């Protein structure tokens, strides 16, 4: 009664206040989420009784009602299987943005659709996601290459087949990749070790740009990449997707199929199977073929799940295998070989095209199995459990003599167990959060018989962490904080000659973060996140000792290295207008005891010739930069986009630059749509231009100076057709249209060869 009276008073006041100009031009924006997991609800119906207008929420759960008159309104939100929301509110200029959470009906009625459960990224830090059309355009590329579409993400690559994502200048062990929620654990320390994951399994690639150690565990220092498969179907409805990709360069082809379906008999039961394969031969630069750069890859994944109103379970398995040829001439015997090829600027051997993969090569396989369950204790509390098992095998073959040639020089087997148990609460009041424990166990073994002293020792690793996060949401404001504590033990052993080397190390660290998001008005939003992260030194940094085959380098580890600790502050500003969008991310990352491979400047002599000597050192580092991306619709048919990123990274102790920090770059393009429904993009021509600056901030020592700046032009045409009532997407893309010869600073093979030349790519996607 009192509440109503207050509301009435407020309504009166606001009405009076606006009486002089009683304009019906207010906009009510809002978002509808599932109460249990904060996921957006698509197609919820929002109705304002007094104004007699209604709208349906979009894929992100957002809605906007325009041309509303000030005053009291009753908002009514309905969505199948959920309790109706009915609330009074007073409309004035301040009530522009609201969040509604819908609770599932306790009683599952027959015929009621049970929605799939997929965890949404709940963070106040800057997040960019590739999905839908953008993801479709990236099909056929590796994970690293696909993610380059996100501003601020570049790749650290070894040739054109091995690429690792780099977020804000950090990569390898300083970022995390999650395969369907499980930390991907391969031998990710190696610069030439690409992530063992096929992006075809995902319908969404998300990049979290903040330090997310609290949420995901140690090492998430530069950011996190989430590779998420689609949610499992929960009703009897099957979908099949077929992707075919063909490339002229490397004469590469991909085939990918996925099929998902649900059970009609048992509502809530769903499954998905997916498989993909890729074959490619020697890559062609504008003037020559790169010898031995072919690859073959296959992946398979399957998932099955059951969702009811209270219980959700999922079993998931993925397998990935690849065989990668390494540019023959990049594998050098000693320093004078290396100098000779760098001086030549191109490989000495430039064979013809072939699919054959010879040594040196890598053969990698990765298994991941996981089970996941959640149980709704009550509408606000949810218990989650996740367990993942991973087995990674990596074999690296060099050119060797005699029987040894058939044996790998590096043969590693890595087992990883991860388990997570946590409770989430999503209170009807403004609080949501989670707390739990996170365990990682890892066992790495060198398989005997390589005839080479192992690069890294056999080791057992155990990591235990406890975490707590809480978020407060009120209207346009979200505030978030979290903390975590981790304890890690590492015991390693290896024989070097006849000496047994053993080490037992322990590390521990606490992490905290604080973040916030503020919806300034209906089109502007601001996020800010300050977080600490840490990373214990990796085994290769601790124990490397000896020749890095092929790199003409002897690398020395240091078992006394400290953990790396970072403090990253990320700020994001987003604008979404009628014709334009804008996303600006600015960050600063202070890293204490940053571990890096430092050239000592010394060389040492053996019967095999001379080698450079490198050692792992620690120094304080400071990274900062900007990512900017935006789109603008000139007309209904003509759209433009631009994105760019700038990174500055310095060793603050010696006031020098680190190697392999991406240079300044931008990418812009125009797309023109035509046909009957241009806004649906039925026919689209896209012209884009990538501009990459020369890296002027070079380290004191590098084998070769940074390559010059370059510009690439790409042209694409895509068409959507209706075929048997389903959509068929076709696209033809020409990358590096002008066949420009260039070298990329972030490609380790820039020392040896020019980058990939012109490539025609034909894509076919059919969903039925």
């Amino acid at each position, binding site marked *: 009664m009192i509440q109503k009276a207050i509301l009435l008073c407020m309504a009166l006041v606001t009405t009076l206040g606006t009486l002089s100009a009683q304009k019906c031009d207010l906009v009510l924006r809002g978002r509808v989420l599932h109460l249990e997991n904060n996921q957006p609800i698509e197609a919820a119906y929002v109705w304002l009784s007094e104004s007699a207008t209604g709208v349906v929420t979009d894929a992100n759960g957002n809605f906007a009602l325009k041309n509303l008159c000030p005053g009291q309104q009753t908002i009514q939100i309905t969505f199948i299987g959920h309790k109706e929301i009915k609330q009074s509110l007073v409309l004035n200029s301040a009530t522009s943005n609201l969040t509604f959470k819908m609770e599932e009906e306790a009683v599952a009625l027959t015929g009621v659709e049970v929605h799939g459960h997929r965890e949404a990224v709940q963070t106040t830090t800057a997040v960019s996601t590739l999905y839908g059309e953008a993801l479709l355009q990236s099909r056929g590329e590796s994970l690293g290459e696909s993610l380059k579409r996100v501003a601020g993400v570049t790749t650290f690559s070894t040739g054109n087949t091995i690429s690792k994502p780099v977020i804000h200048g950090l990569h390898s062990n300083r970022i995390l990749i999650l395969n369907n929620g499980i930390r991907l654990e391969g031998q990710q320390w190696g610069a030439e070790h690409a992530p063992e994951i096929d992006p075809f399994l995902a319908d969404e690639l998300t990049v979290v740009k903040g330090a997310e150690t609290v949420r995901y565990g140690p090492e998430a220092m530069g950011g996190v990449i989430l590779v998420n498969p689609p949610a499992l179907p929960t009703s009897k409805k099957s979908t099949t997707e077929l992707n075919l990709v063909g490339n002229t360069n490397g004469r590469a082809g991909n085939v990918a199929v996925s099929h998902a379906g649900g059970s009609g008999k048992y509502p809530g039961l769903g499954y998905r199977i997916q498989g993909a394969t890729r074959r490619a031969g020697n890559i062609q630069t504008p003037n020559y073929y790169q010898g031995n750069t072919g690859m073959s890859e296959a992946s398979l994944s399957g998932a099955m799940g059951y969702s009811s109103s209270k219980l959700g379970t999922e079993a998931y398995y993925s397998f990935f295998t690849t065989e990668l040829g390494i540019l023959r001439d990049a594998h050098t015997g000693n320093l*004078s070989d290396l100098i000779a090829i760098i001086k030549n600027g191109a490989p000495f051997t430039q064979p013809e095209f072939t699919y054959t993969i010879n040594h040196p090569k890598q053969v990698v396989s990765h298994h991941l199995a996981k089970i996941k369950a959640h149980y709704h204790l009550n509408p606000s509390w949810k218990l989650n459990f996740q367990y993942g*098992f991973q087995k990674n095998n990596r074999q690296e073959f060099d050119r060797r003599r005699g029987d040894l040639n058939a044996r790998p020089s590096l043969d590693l087997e890595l087992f990883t167990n991860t388990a997570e148990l946590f409770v989430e609460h999503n209170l009807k009041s403004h609080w949501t959060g989670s707390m739990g424990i996170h365990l990682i166990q890892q066992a790495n073994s*060198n398989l*005997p018989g390589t005839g080479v002293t192992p690069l890294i020792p056999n*080791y057992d690793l155990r990591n235990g962490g406890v975490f707590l996060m809480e978020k407060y949401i009120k209207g346009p404001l979200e505030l978030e904080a979290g903390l975590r504590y981790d304890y890690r033990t590492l015991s390693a052993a290896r024989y070097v*000659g006849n000496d047994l080397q053993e080490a037992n190390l322990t590390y521990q660290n606490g992490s905290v973060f604080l973040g916030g998001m503020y919806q300034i008005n209906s089109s502007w939003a601001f996020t800010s996140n300050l977080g600490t992260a840490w990373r214990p030194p990796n085994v290769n940094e601790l124990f490397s000792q000896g020749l890095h085959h092929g790199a003409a380098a002897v690398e020395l580890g240091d078992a006394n290295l400290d953990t790396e600790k970072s403090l990253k502050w990320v700020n994001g500003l987003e604008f979404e207008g009628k014709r334009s969008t804008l996303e600006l991310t600015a960050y600063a990352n202070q890293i204490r005891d940053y571990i890096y491979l430092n050239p000592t400047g010394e060389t040492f002599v053996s019967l095999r*010739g001379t080698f450079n*000597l490198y050692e792992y050192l620690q120094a304080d580092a400071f990274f900062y930069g900007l990512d900017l991306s935006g789109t603008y619709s000139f007309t209904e048919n003509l759209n433009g986009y631009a994105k760019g990123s700038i990174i500055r990274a310095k060793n603050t102790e010696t006031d020098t630059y680190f190697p392999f920090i991406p240079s300044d770059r931008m990418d812009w393009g125009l797309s023109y749509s035509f046909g009957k429904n241009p806004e649906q993009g039925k026919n689209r021509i896209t012209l884009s231009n990538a501009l990459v600056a020369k890296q002027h901030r070079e380290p004191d020592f590098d084998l070769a100076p940074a390559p010059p700046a370059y510009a690439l032009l790409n042209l694409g045409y895509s068409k959507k057709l209706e075929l048997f009532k389903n959509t068929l997407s076709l696209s033809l893309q020409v990358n590096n249209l002008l066949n420009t010869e260039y070298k990329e600073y972030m490609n380790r093979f820039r020392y040896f060869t020019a980058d990939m030349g012109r490539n025609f790519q034909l894509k076919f996607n059919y969903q039925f």
Partner: protein
Amino acid sequence: MKNLKKVSLYLLALVAFGFASCQSEDPTKENDGEVITDVTLKFQELNSSNELVGSVLSFKASDPQGIEVGKTPTIQSVSLAKGKKYQMTIEVTNAIKGEDITQEILTEAAAHQFFFLGQVFDSSFFSIQYADAGGVALGLKTIVTVSSSTGTNNSNMRVVLRHDLNKSFPGASNPNFANFVQAGGETDLDLTFPVILN
């Protein structure tokens, strides 16, 4: 609820099994197979009718640990007489593993080749030709002719073993081919012997 308990018990058992079965193997000793520890150059005089005469002169370069930081190889000086012709044979071994690598090089003659460089050739003190069985350009066996007049008694000879090269690359048939890198492949041996001429 009963089912839930059962399920969670199964899950726990599975996790416990997973974690318990995950232990690294004990490390094993790995003999470096690829390492070359000893390279011996053997010279025997050839008389005017190309018959081997006299005793064999051996000069050795060795690095007992193979490639190891802080150690440099010991290389003996090659001491030869001016104006004479020698047959040179090269022996390559891995003393760590007790392996004769010479035989492996011979078996893979198509993928290996020695090149001979350094001052002795630049100043024409030496001339060299491949004399391997079957006429292949390999360099395990060569004929070395020492000039009768040399400006100095002290010189040096660089011996390079290339692996996985294109042997039919133009110029690669010459044992003194200085641009051997252009023929592709990688270096397995690159060492310089001091040479004393009497």
